[in-house]
Structure formats: C-alpha cells, structure tokens
C-alpha cells in the first residue's frame, strides 16, 4: 500500500469574485522513501495541493471533494483532532521563505524545543538534547551556541536548515518542501538540496518537492507531477517526463528553458499569458496557449491517458498521434481509448 494516496482532490477558494478552483481533480500516490516533485507555474495549484494534504488552507479555502489517505487512514473530514496528530508527527512541511517562517522574537532553541515538546513526550532537558542533535544533523556548526541565538543572527541558508531541523525533529514519514530553495542563492541551494538528499536516504522518509525549477526536479525527484491551472497534465517517472514528455504544456516548458544548446539561438517560449482561474476555458485549460490545439481541445477536456506503466498524460495529442500511426481508427471512437 502506498504511504500517501491522494484521489480526486478538489480544493476551491470562495472569494468575492467567485469560486476559484485551485485544485481540480488531482490524484497521485507516494511510496515510502520516494521523492515526488510537483512542478508548475504560479497559480497552478501546486502549493494548494500541499496545503490541502496538511489541511492548513486559508480561511476562504475548502476541500470540496476527494480523499487523502495516509497509511490507509482517511484524512479528509477526519477532524482537527486527527490532523493535530498528523501535522508535524507524520507529515511535516517547510516553506519557501525561511526569513518569515521563524518567529523573530524567540531564540532558535526555544522554537525547536517547542516543536519537539508539542509532538513527543520529551521533557525540557530531553527536548534540548534532541534540538541540538537535530541542528548537528543539518550541519550547523556550534549548535549549543546557535540555540541561544535569534533568527536574525542567521543567514538565509542557515534559517532554512533550522526549518528542516524542526520539520524532521519528530521523524515524519513525509516531508513536504514548498519551494525550499527558491529564496536562496545557487551555492546555498546546492548545500540545502544535498542535505535534503542525504537526510532522505539516512532517515528513509518520503519527500514531496514543490518547485517551479525543472533543474531541482531533475536533481532530486524519482517521480514528477506536472500541474497547470489546478489540474495534472502529466505524471510519471522523472526520466519519462524529461525524455518523453507527452503533454503539450510539458513539451513547451522543456523547450523554453535556456540550455547549452540554445546559446545564440532564439528560445521557443510558450505563447500567451498565464491563465485566469476565475475564467477557466471549457476544454483543456492549456488550449488557449497551445500551438497545436485542435478543435476537440477547445471544447472537451481530455481524460487521463495511460502512456505506459510509468507515465500518464491528459492531452488529446496522444490520441491524434495514435490515429496518425494507425493504432486506432476514428470509427472506434477516440475518447474511450487508453
């Protein structure tokens, strides 16, 4: 059984301007010890997916359907009491901005110990020992001294290490990292990614890595989910997604990154502007920006199509290509094919 099973998750925000379907029918599974990447641009719903799993949505947000199962236990509708035993203990989260995630008025030590004492039976002395041990684990020099310091006395990379130490203090099964290195410089990013990679192997936890950086995904992830406008366009193993993309959005994304080969040449951007979640198109949400959009794309949203056992995509282009190759004929009906 999968460690985490998310099925048909739907989360909406009810704003004055109307309902915003931030997460629309998202399903994926995560096995123990694996790293899953969720990629997408701003507004794609990648962070809201994570917040829905943790049930830490803002006031206007609500899970309106679907299920989230942790080790077989249903979390949607389970109530705050259950969630309190899940958050921090079984699933931890670290946020993008290490500058604002720590309380500036308390010492690092106090904040770490608070988290440890809240989630375990340790007394103050044991919690202190555990906090120092955790700081040492994330490669912070002189942890005893650091315990007495305030967040402003630490650099960005160090604060992110403290956040990781806090998130891992109770040995969670799953660590959700929401853009953990976006605010950091490249050399510090390399340090943090290396640290996360080695801790993941050491502690055997699973990681959900939320990012917009395909480079980070390539380096860290076993499996990848690509999101656009609240839905999954494509999911599969990292190799499948990078070397055999089967959704027009993923293909466009891969083409638009500058690489060694594009120097001096024109990039091939995705045209158009990002989607307005309040005015979603009827068919495929990517169709208005897709160069290869067909009539069917504008009117009908594609179903999830299985490409192979490691790969699925939600793009009509796969059907068209199958027809072009003569694998299916139109008389059989295009859309019940997988």
């Amino acid at each position: 059984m999968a460690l985490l099973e998310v099925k048909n998750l739907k989360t909406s925000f009810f704003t004055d301007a109307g309902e915003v379907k931030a997460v629309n029918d998202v399903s994926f599974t995560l096995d123990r010890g694996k790293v899953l990447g969720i990629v997408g641009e701003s507004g794609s719903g990648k962070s809201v997916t994570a917040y829905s799993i943790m049930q830490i949505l803002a006031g206007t947000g609500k899970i309106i359907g679907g299920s989230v199962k942790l080790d077989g236990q249903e979390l949607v509708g389970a109530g705050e009491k259950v969630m309190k035993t899940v958050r921090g203990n079984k699933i931890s989260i670290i946020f993008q901005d290490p500058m604002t995630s720590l309380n500036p008025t308390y010492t690092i030590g106090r904040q770490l110990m608070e988290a440890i004492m809240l989630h375990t039976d340790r007394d103050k002395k044991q919690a202190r020992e555990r906090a120092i041990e955790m700081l040492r684990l994330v490669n912070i020099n002189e942890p005893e001294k650091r315990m007495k310091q305030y967040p402003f006395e630490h650099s960005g990379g160090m604060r992110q290490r403290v956040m990781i130490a806090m998130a891992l203090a109770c040995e969670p099964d799953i660590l959700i990292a929401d853009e953990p290195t976006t605010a950091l410089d490249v050399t510090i990013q390399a340090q943090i990614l290396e640290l996360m990679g080695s801790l993941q192997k050491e502690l055997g936890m699973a990681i959900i890595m939320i990012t917009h950086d395909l480079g980070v995904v390539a380096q860290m992830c076993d499996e990848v989910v690509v999101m656009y406008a609240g839905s999954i366009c494509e999911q599969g193993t990292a190799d499948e997604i990078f070397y055999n993309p089967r959704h027009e959005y993923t293909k466009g994304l891969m083409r638009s990154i500058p690489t060694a080969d594009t120097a001096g040449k024109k990039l091939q951007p995705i045209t158009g502007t990002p989607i307005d979640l309040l005015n979603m198109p009827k068919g495929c949400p990517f169709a208005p920006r897709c160069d290869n959009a067909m009539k069917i794309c504008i009117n009908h949203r594609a179903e999830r199509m299985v490409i192979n056992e490691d790969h699925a995509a939600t793009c009509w282009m796969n059907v068209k290509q199958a027809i072009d190759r003569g694998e299916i004929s139109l008389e059989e009906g295009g859309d019940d094919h997988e």
Partner: protein
Amino acid sequence: MSENKTLIEVKDLKEYFNINTGMFRSKPLKAVDGVSFSINKGETLGLVGESGCGKTTVGRTILHLYKPTGGEIRYNGKLIKSRSDIKEFRKKATMVFQDPYSSLNPRMTVSDIIGEPLDVHKLTKGKKERQERILELMDYVGLNSEHAARYAHEFSGGQRQRIGIARSLAVNPDFIVCDEPVSALDVSIQAQVINMFDELQDKLGLTYLFIAHDLLVVRHISDRIAVMYLGRMVELADANEIYDHPLHPYSQSLLSAVPVPDPKVARANKRIVLTGDIPSPLNAPSGCPFRTRCRYACDKCAESMPPFEEVSKGHFVACHRVKEIND
C-alpha cells in the same frame, strides 16, 4: 553585432555605503570595491553573482543612481562627472528593474508610464507626436494600443515587464542596464521576455549589461560574462569560455551548483558544494574575499588581494593560484 568599439568603460569603480554600527559610529560597507570592465557597442555583458555580491550596485552606480565613491565611468570615451554629463548620459542609458510589481506607479496609466521619460527629457513636441511615440514603443514590446489607457495592476507579470522595457526604450537609449529582468517571471513567460530582449537588440542596436543570478539565462543571452564575489570581480570571459573552462574556484563551484534540467546529467554531475556562507561585506576577509570558502586557499591568499589579470586572450581572473589549480 559587436564592432569592438567600446561604449561603456568602467575603471576601478568603488561604492561604499556608510552603515551605522552604533550611536555616532559608522562603518563603510564596501558594496563595490574596485571593479573595472568595458562593454562594446552592441554587446551583452552578463553580470552574475550571489545576493550581496554588489552586482546590482554596479548597475546602479554606472547610471549614477548612486554617486560613485571612487573610480571612473566613461561613455563613448567621455568621462561622466558633472550634473549636465549625467543628465545627457541618462538620455542614452536606462534601466529595467527586477520587480515588475513595484517598479510601475499604480496610479499612472500605461501611456503615462511610458510617456514620462519623454516629458522629463522633452523629447516630443505636442500631444500627437507624444502619443505616436508611445504607441510605437508599445508595439516594440508587443503590447496592443488598446492597453494604453489601462493601469499596471490590470496586467500579468510578463506584460508589466514589457511596460517597464517600453519605458526604458522611450528615450531611445544605446545602453540598458537590465537588473534581474526575468527573475520574477514564470518559466513559460521568461522565454518570451528573453526573446524580446534579443529582438530589440538586433532591431535597435542596443548594448546590455544583463544582471542576473540565473546562470542558464545569462549564458543564453550574454556574449561575455563577469562573475562577482563580495564587491570584487573574480572572473571575466566569453560566455562559452567561462562555462566550459571556468578558472576561478568560485566560478567553478557556482557553475557546478546550477541544477541542470536533465535527470541523467544531474545524477552524474559532480557538484563542488561550497561550505559556509558568504561573509558579511562589513567584515570582509583580508586578501582574497573568497578565501574563507575556497578549497585551495593558502597563506598568500590572506595576505594580499590577487590582481585581476588576463590569463588568456579576453579571459581575466583574480586568483593567486589560478595556474596551479587549473593544471
């Protein structure tokens, strides 16, 4: 494009900020400490480095948005010094800012934002000419004429950056300092804006100083690249040369730290992970600024600042041990 004619020449540029360290006490923060380089006409010079290395300050000081503490800036061979020099210079050199959300006045319409530089420098006569010029500029950056009467908040990040670029083009400049112009944009939009910079350069013969921390973007757009660390320039070379043969230990680790969007390459990649953080520029190390994080640091590195020397044609490096470590 490049005719090997120097457009911008910067010599020993210094920019110190006074930081209060206590009551009645202050200390100079050496944001830029003796940087020299030149940019040829029609060329793009990429300037990379981590936060706090002084790359933005270099860009701003060149345009005299900060008064330089020391050093010289020459435009077309002419030293920029007096107030009138600066005013003339600013008709030929402009800037595109990083954040398209805070760099546009929310109370002004698009046509007022783009038209403001025209008014300041009195470049158009009469309303009709002004309006025509604004529409021409909007056309350059791919905005429709119907956008002219709208306000900045009605646009997405990518479109706002286009407005900012149109504004910087208003005075018909030769030289544009682009300070992280695509960092705030999504990947899919980033490529559109990068292509636009390319096209505008070809069309208008622009020269760019392109400041960014995203090394893949910088490599794509630049002819030459300069690497800065803690207020100093540590390496300068052709874009391909610096990517294929970085000589300074800092450039080497910086380039190896870039996550490559290719799983097989990423898995095989040997990263040189630096230990520690960038020292505070208030307490910069003696000698070479990088020595506290450098694997090759020796006694000599603590004693004196290595000179910025040309080691092969057009390839400058500031490292005492550059010959030994690259053998």
